[in-house]
């Protein structure tokens, strides 16, 4: 296990957004460690910095200050800012992302949407059999449908399949069920939990839904840009 089983290690992560002359301290010196195979849920009031934190952990943007190590490798810190290409290189090796709005490409079929990441990058050992992934997520009967022809819950399954084709180590889910009803939320939750259990996928999930939040093995409560383990 690289980094002694520690997947992500953040120290004093801070993100300040400038809004005109006024500064917003969206994230205020967060330090935490995430181990490989953990299912961590982030909860907390709106504006507390959940999205900001997972975006930094997921290498979607640079912090204002603080350090981040990924599998023992130093990513952010010492005032150095990574460019878009470097960030992309890290992201495609390590992360898969799903969001509240599924962001499927409306002109492509379910099958094509899932295969889309492979058009840009195919990681050695990638799951090029997209039908196989879709099958495991119960979508084998919708392969040639367009996103406009399937339900919200199904769209999120497609988005999950898409996030998984390149076999990421860490799945980042920012309010994955924010647009779904209770039943669908439960289904997506089960899928995530099953993925975590059977494949050891590390999952970082932001949610407002307490039941979904309980699925994770570890809970982090965000408040005013700071993180508290609960």
């Amino acid at each position, binding site marked *: 296990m690289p980094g002694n089983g520690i997947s992500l290690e953040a120290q004093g992560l801070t993100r300040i957004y400038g809004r005109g002359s006024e500064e917003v301290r969206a994230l205020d010196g967060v330090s935490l460690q995430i181990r490989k195979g953990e299912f961590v849920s982030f909860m907390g009031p709106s504006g507390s910095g959940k*999205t900001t934190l997972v*975006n930094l952990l997921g290498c*979607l*943007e640079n912090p204002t200050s603080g350090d981040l190590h990924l599998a023992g490798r130093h990513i952010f810190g010492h005032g150095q800012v990574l460019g*878009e*290409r470097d960030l*992309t290189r890290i*992201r*495609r090796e390590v*992360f898969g*992302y799903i*969001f509240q*709005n599924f*962001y499927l*490409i*409306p*002109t*492509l079929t379910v099958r*094509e949407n899932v*295969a*889309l*990441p*492979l*058009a*840009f*990058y195919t990681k050695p050992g990638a799951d*090029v059999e997209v039908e196989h992934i879709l099958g495991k997520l119960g979508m084998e009967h919708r392969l040639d449908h367009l996103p406009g022809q399937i339900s919200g819950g199904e769209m999120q399954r497609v988005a999950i399949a*898409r996030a998984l084709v*390149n076999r990421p180590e860490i799945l980042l889910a*920012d309010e994955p069920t924010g647009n779904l009803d209770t039943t669908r939320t439960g289904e997506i939750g089960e899928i995530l939990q099953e993925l975590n259990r059977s494949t050891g996928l590390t999952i970082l999930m932001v949610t407002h839904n307490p039941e979904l939040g309980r699925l994770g093995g570890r809970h982090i409560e965000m408040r005013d840009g700071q993180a508290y383990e609960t």
Partner: protein
Amino acid sequence: MISKFQIAHKNLLRKKARTLLTLVGIILSSWVLVSLLGFNRGYEKALNRDIDNMGYQVMVMAKGCPYEAATMMLQGGAGLRYIEEDVAKSIETRPEVDKVTPILMQAFFDPNKGDGGGIAGYFGIDLATFPAMKPFLRFHKGGWFKDPTAAEAVMGYEAAELEQREVGDLILVPEKNVQLQVVGILERTGTQDDGTIFVPLKTLQKISALDKITTIGIKVKKDADITKLEAALYQLPDMQVVSFSQVKQTILKLIATARVMVLSIAVIALLIAMVGVVNTVLMSVLERKHEIGILKTMGAMPGDIFRLVWTETLILCACGGLAGIGLALGFARLSDLLVRRVLPYAPGGELVAIDVRLALLTLLIIVAVGLLSGMYPAWKAGRIRPLDSIRGEG
């Protein structure tokens, strides 16, 4: 698996109306471009062919004599001056001269021609020298006159068509009330010959009660010094020398302005299409900000996105360019007609000449311009960051 090309292509089909409108812009501009380039080349070619089809490179006529049959006809033959036939003989002795042929041009008013009458142009030609100077003349029907004094006529293709005459029919020389028998009808040449009625020189001289001529056509020997010949001819008293290489230069000069205009129009059409492409592609990039951001979370590099958007421009321009060139080829006759209407002088034959090389060149220009206009939107798309799309939306 799905390729970037498929992604780009499917995206273009998303907003069909917009894609179609942009395509129409590219189609029109490539149509205009290839037609205008075709004209630029075709015109000079047609002019050269016209001049070659004169058969002679230099013409001598009496001062005050209008040298173009068309002008002569407009003036109803008034102001015609004549040359002695001997002049032709003396010119023939010059070392630069290959052949000469004496011609008598006459115009008669025909009250039955068209609405309210018209002018019929008659050329009295020398059977021994004229056909030899124009070996490319082909007969649609019949042939040349039996002998140099026969009461016979050979009609240009259009003249025969206009007067509805066949070989064997009679024609009446207006004003003179003389009948001639049609013995031959020429194939279409695309030159003034088409509208002319040819009569043996002696016969026309008899009809007109003259023993002179109006014009001498001179065929210069290969590699002979035309300028020297012209200089010598200018020494002849009361003579006017028309050199077709000069005529060609004059016409080309006249047309130069038109050609510059034509090329500016082509450039403007191209610029308009370019703005259309930039607008369309940029709009579609801005609309897809979220999608592009998400492609970036999937591992797409800025260069990948750049190429993706660039491919869209390439598809648009290649399709539009091809369709435009196809239309230009299909409607080449129409462009020909349009161009003819606006030109001060239009030679016969094909004015808008589009060949494979020109079509390829146009396609190349269109695609190059397209790729150039695709650069800014593609660059802009490449710079979209994942968070630009994920953040801040309802």
